[in-house]
């Protein structure tokens, strides 16, 4: 990265900022367009669903912040940022909010099953998110990054599998589960892209377009079903 001309770096930053901005706007639109429905119903499923997208908005905000810092400090790896605590804190916040967003979205599907134990389960999700973030900032090994990503994805898919198993309406349920699975996959790829620079160098635009596509599909469904569209 240090060897690249400044105008190319800035061009990259513009794309990064635009990408994060669109996803943050989509997430916030999902959050605010469901506000009235939640306030009227106080339905817990809607609450967890909204919180998941608010957390995604925060995570993507810190993602763009990390990208800006990388350009500012002229490095390609966040752990090389000096002062080190600045990079570590930002990475911790990004990982924490991102992981929690995934957990909240899975919990929005399965909260009915474990409603009485919601404090314990949500507490566990917070604890795992802190643990994941801590492992990421204290480890510099690529194997650990992959391990954490696979672990996070496995929890998300396992949660959806549990819901799917008890589902009566298989056809309809699989639709939203496919969208969520893709959302989780692209979130994890976004995470890996931050942790391991240049990993998707040639496929970066494809990754960004796919991630945007998933968020736009969810936003469209939310606006349509919430009566805002």
């Amino acid at each position: 990265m240090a060897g690249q001309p400044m105008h190319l770096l800035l061009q990259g930053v513009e794309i990064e900022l635009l990408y994060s901005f669109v996803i943050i706007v989509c997430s916030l639109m999902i959050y605010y367009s469901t506000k009235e429905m939640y306030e009227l119903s106080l339905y817990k499923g809607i609450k967890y669903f909204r919180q998941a997208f608010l957390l995604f908005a925060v995570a993507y905000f810190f993602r763009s912040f990390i990208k800006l810092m990388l350009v500012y400090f002229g490095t390609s790896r966040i752990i090389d940022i000096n002062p080190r605590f600045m990079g570590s804190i930002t990475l911790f916040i990004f990982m924490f909010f991102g992981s929690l967003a995934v957990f909240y979205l899975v919990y929005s599907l399965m909260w009915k099953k474990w409603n009485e134990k919601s404090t314990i389960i949500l507490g566990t999700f917070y604890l795992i998110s802190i643990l994941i973030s801590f492992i990421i900032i204290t480890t510099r090994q690529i194997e650990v990054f992959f391990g954490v990503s696979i672990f996070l994805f496995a929890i998300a898919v396992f949660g959806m599998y549990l819901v799917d198993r008890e589902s009566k309406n298989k056809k309809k349920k699989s639709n939203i589960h496919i969208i969520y699975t893709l959302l989780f996959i692209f979130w994890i790829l976004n995470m890996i892209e931050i942790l391991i620079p240049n990993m998707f160098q040639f496929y970066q635009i494809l990754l960004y377009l796919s991630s945007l596509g998933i968020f736009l599909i969810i936003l469209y469904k939310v606006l349509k079903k919430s009566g805002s569209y």
Partner: protein
Amino acid sequence: MKKRGRLEIIKDILRTIQDNRNSIKHTPLLRKSNISTTKFKEYFKELIEKGFVKEIIGNSGQKTIALTQKGFDFLERYKTIVNFIEEFEL
């Protein structure tokens, strides 16, 4: 018979009030709600706290229950909320 969910019970209570020209006494509302007295008290307390219904004391001193604007809004949006919950499996 399918067990009604929390949202459906709230909708039924509010609909009953609306269908009675937005004025009904406690006892007929309890009877028409088709839930136990204990449950009814819980739901009624929640509806008052949420601001969906209000108690009105008439000239004769009798209490009646009426929907607030928020209660009307809930009934109007009920179908949308249920569709949304089903679509996203919440």
